[in-house]
């Protein structure tokens, strides 16, 4: 089939030629003319097939070069009318003649006449005086030239003895000399193997519905393809590489018994900070770091929840008659701040909202979603990045379980050993940071977490210990996927996404 990308498919003629060659003794080269005769195919068909088979690596050829002589148009004319020198000899055989008369009688033009004189002079057969006079009646050279013309006119080879004469006639333009290449062929090793596969049944290139409908494929044979041939470049749509990576993290968490939560991106300061016991004076709560929403406020939470959180921040008993949980942050808690709307700076707001649902212990919850900080934009930082976080609560849950969870996560992500170091987060105590070793970047802090403080749990009415963790998944994904610039994740370049590694 024309344009078949698999060029190894053999046409019927190619198959015939290849089989013909393969029948020959190993090492024997067969001239193409001979092959043409043997296979009853035209020489053109045989040559074409042999060339295509050679391109496929199925045949090899060797060449011999020679020259053939034939009559040029002037040679043909000389054969018919006689050589110029013969014509001159003829007119002079009757006796010497003046030049002009001799030329007129033999009917040669100036150039031919000069050539005729030159030839006869070379043979010392002509004396040039006032008249032209023949000294040898039948010059041998003229006869030899006529013999050459005779051989070639009769399609005979010029005998070796006459070849010097023929060379001179080539120079005179009476003969044409052409190089000729003779090629002899044999099948390559691969060609012999393929020839064995090619049967005499009709062969099929691309399988068509007609083959199937008619059943013709049953008696046909399938032409083998060149399995190394180039094929067309195809590409296509798929999942975003980063989101695919996140889905793997999600699968890991689902396998570890975590249930998913989603929630508000625009959040009140209460759930983003106050409920997490982050002091209102904390530098990260200012407009330097947090993105606030223009011209809109939210609602304060349920009154008793707000009261407990306020009391705890101020270092007072959560409820009248109780003991204070801790020193708190001192100063006066500004209730107005609780209503401020901002883009959540951490997904921990979802942990607070989840715990407010009072899940039955033991419980495990995860969320993955965007968080926002007022970073300046560069290759490593964007205002928006994703956080993956979760809580794990229940009777007897301890820091060791959190470390166990981190160890499992690191193992499942293929990160190997985890080292733990004490850390600090306003809403957990004790707090830890898990480090994993990256082959290129050394120890990296990737697994922060801790046990929620009583100041967080008490107002929410949670009575069991709760381990909380939050992973900067975007940074981890960049390291894991080899992405150097965070903007590539949001760039959605189609060729990159289509060809990203799985």
């Amino acid at each position, binding site marked *: 089939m024309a344009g078949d990308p698999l060029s190894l498919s053999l046409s019927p003629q190619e198959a015939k030629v290849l089989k013909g060659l393969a029948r020959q003794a190993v090492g024997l080269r067969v001239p193409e003319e001979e092959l043409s005769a043997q296979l009853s195919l035209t020489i053109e068909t045989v040559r074409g097939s042999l060339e295509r088979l050679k391109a496929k690596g199925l045949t090899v050829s060797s060449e011999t070069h020679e020259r053939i002589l034939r009559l040029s148009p002037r040679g043909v004319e000389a054969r018919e009318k006689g050589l110029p020198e013969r014509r001159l000899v003829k007119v002079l055989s009757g006796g010497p003649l003046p030049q002009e008369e001799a030329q007129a009688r033999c009917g040669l033009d100036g150039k031919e006449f000069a050539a005729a004189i030159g030839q006869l002079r070379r043979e010392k057969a002509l004396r040039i005086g006032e008249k032209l006079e023949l000294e040898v009646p039948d010059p041998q050279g003229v006869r030899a030239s006529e013999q050459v013309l005779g051989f070639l006119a009769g399609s005979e080879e010029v005998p070796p003895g006459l070849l010097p004469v023929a060379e001179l006639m080539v120079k005179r333009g009476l003969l044409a000399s052409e190089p000729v290449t003779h090629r002899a062929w044999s099948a390559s090793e691969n060609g012999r193997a393929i020839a064995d596969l090619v049967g005499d049944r009709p062969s099929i290139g691309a399988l068509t519905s007609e083959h199937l409908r008619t059943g013709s494929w049953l008696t046909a044979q399938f032409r083998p393809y060149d399995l190394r041939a180039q094929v067309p470049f195809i590409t296509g749509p*798929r*999942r*975003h590489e*980063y989101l695919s990576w996140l889905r793997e993290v999600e699968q890991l*968490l*689902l*396998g570890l018994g*975590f*249930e*998913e*939560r*989603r929630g*508000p*991106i*625009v959040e009140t300061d209460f759930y983003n900070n106050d409920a997490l016991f982050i002091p209102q004076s904390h530098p990260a709560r200012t*407009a330097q770091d947090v*993105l*606030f*929403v223009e*011209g*809109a406020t*939210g*609602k304060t939470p349920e009154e008793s929840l707000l009261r407990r959180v306020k009391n705890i921040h101020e270092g007072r008993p959560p409820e009248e008659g109780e003991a204070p*949980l*801790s*020193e708190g942050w*001192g*100063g006066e808690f500004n209730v107005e701040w609780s209503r401020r*709307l901002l883009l959540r700076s951490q997904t921990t707001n979802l942990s607070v*909202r989840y715990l407010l649902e009072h899940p039955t212990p*033991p419980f*495990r919850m995860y969320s993955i979603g965007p968080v926002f900080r*007022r970073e300046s934009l560069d290759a490593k930082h*964007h*205002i*928006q990045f994703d956080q993956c976080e979760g809580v*794990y609560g229940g009777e*007897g849950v*301890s*820091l*060791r*379980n959190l*470390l*166990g*969870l981190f*160890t499992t996560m690191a193992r499942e992500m293929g990160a190997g050993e*985890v080292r733990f*170091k*004490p850390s*600090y987060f306003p809403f957990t105590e004790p*707090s*830890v940071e898990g480090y994993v070793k990256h082959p290129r970047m050394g120890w990296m802090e990737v697994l922060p977490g801790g*046990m929620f403080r009583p*100041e967080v749990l008490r107002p929410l009415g949670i009575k069991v210990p709760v381990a909380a963790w939050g992973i900067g998944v975007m940074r981890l994904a960049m390291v894991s996927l080899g992405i150097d610039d965070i903007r590539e994740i*949001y*760039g*959605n*370049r189609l*060729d990159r996404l*289509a060809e990203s590694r799985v």
Partner: protein
Amino acid sequence: MPQATLSTRTLFQILGSEISPREVEDLLFRTKVELHEVKDPEMMVEVTHDRLDLLCESGLANLLSGLLHQRPLATLPPTLSPSGFSVRVDPSVAPLRPEIALAVVRAPEGSGIDAGLLSELIKFQEILHTSLGINRREGSIGLYPLRGLVSPLTYSLEKVEGLRFTPLAVEGVPSSGEQDVSEFLSSHPMALKYGSLGHTKDRTLVLKDSAGTLLSLPPILNAAKHGEIRVGEKEVLIESTGKNSRTVRDLVGYMMLPFVTRGWTVHSTTNVVQGNGPSEPRWATLRKVAIASSTAEHLLGRPIGAAKIHQDLMAAGFDAEVRGPEFSVRVPPWRPDVLGEVDLVEEVMVLEGIASFPPQESGHQTQGRMLPLSRYSEKLAEILLGMGYQEAHTPVLLPRDLSRRLCPEKSTLELSNPVSEELSVVRSTLLPSLMLALSLNTGQSYPQRLYEIADVVEVAPETPTGSSTRLHLCAVLAGEGAGFANAMALLERLMRVIGSSAVREPGNELGGIPGRVAELSLAGEKLAVVGEVHPEILVDLKLQQPVCWTEIDLTLLWTLKGNGPRDAVPS
């Protein structure tokens, strides 16, 4: 995180022994200190925000001594002896910088400030100024030789006119002798830097003693003679002024540490606020925090024993009286990070070493599950992928101008303090995000198909967050021939597999070609929009191909399909 460069010589001198850099590194990995570099005679450390006490040689020496020798270097008696010094706080300071705290420190017999202590004090003071003091705005510290000062001091806001002052020489600015305060305030580099925190138009904050000696102009600079600490000094007054009492108390508390670590004693002072009578600072009697050993064992996950917990806390510098499994410890003034019981639990963890709490898989069985809406949207994603749409991931924030042209203004929230115009509006539909994604792909072959399933935020004044975070699905097709029919065909395909039929009505969505936008409503609510993007927007985004889009509110769809509130996105 806050950092400091510390002198290893001073550190080892205080510690009483030298330890190898390797050993320092191993010990500090067990703590909240991150060691960046040890290069004799200096080391660079970074600490977590709660442990500013570790940003001086004394703090680090105390920590290492606890870990190595199970004993702290700095201890205080339960109740400090009074110094006899007091400060009268004039009500005039209230609007500008209302709080002041003082403490007096005295050297042990035959001792005094040496070069190591002086250098540590100067560096530590500056670190506290920038960190906790937030460049002196929230709080600042002054140190004064006590000799020659006459109690009570007065902290007041005084008229600048007629006030004279000899500024302390500071780095790069030698003392210029006595001058008018007005001149000082308008010309001295320190006044130009911090002056706005300490004076109004014609008045300035002043600290002076009963003899009328001017000690300093808080928070700008001390006076030359009475505000300069020199080697050999045996009695020092530590002062802090600031906006709130907690900050000034903590600043003075931190500054005690280098003195107490070297055996100095601390003595309390009295504040007299007009109309309120005298008050003692809170550290006159060290505050107590109770701990039950069971809390530590439960949180940390293994038996430790009350005696061991007691020993650990003593080693960490908390004086403890044991009364069985529950006891109280006294918290020194330089450990304001200890708010309650759990902070002591963390101290136990550090002293025991995290490595002694091996990770443990829990025996709890819980069921992992995605939200039904997430599972549902995954199924729709599969359909879109099958139809040749590439998944995209775009930011939630949009350029203001694009949002105004594609998102209805009344349902869209803007930021009050955006970092750039490009990221200043919270998207209320996904279309603009995908249009931007297309505009970043103009060099690629067409047709292009993109989809995204992600959150958008709509204004919803009646909800607690003033907004509603909703899951949307949007698909765009760009290329020759992309038009309304493609978008509608896609929507109909999705609606068929969703199993809903909706009413098709003409829409007037922003950004669409008039007459080529349709809305689909279900139960009277707008569920989906399809249409052709207006060429004005295409041209602005440098897109030379027609674009059509399909957008569905999946949160609404899910709710209308009769699913419980648990599955909806809470707002």
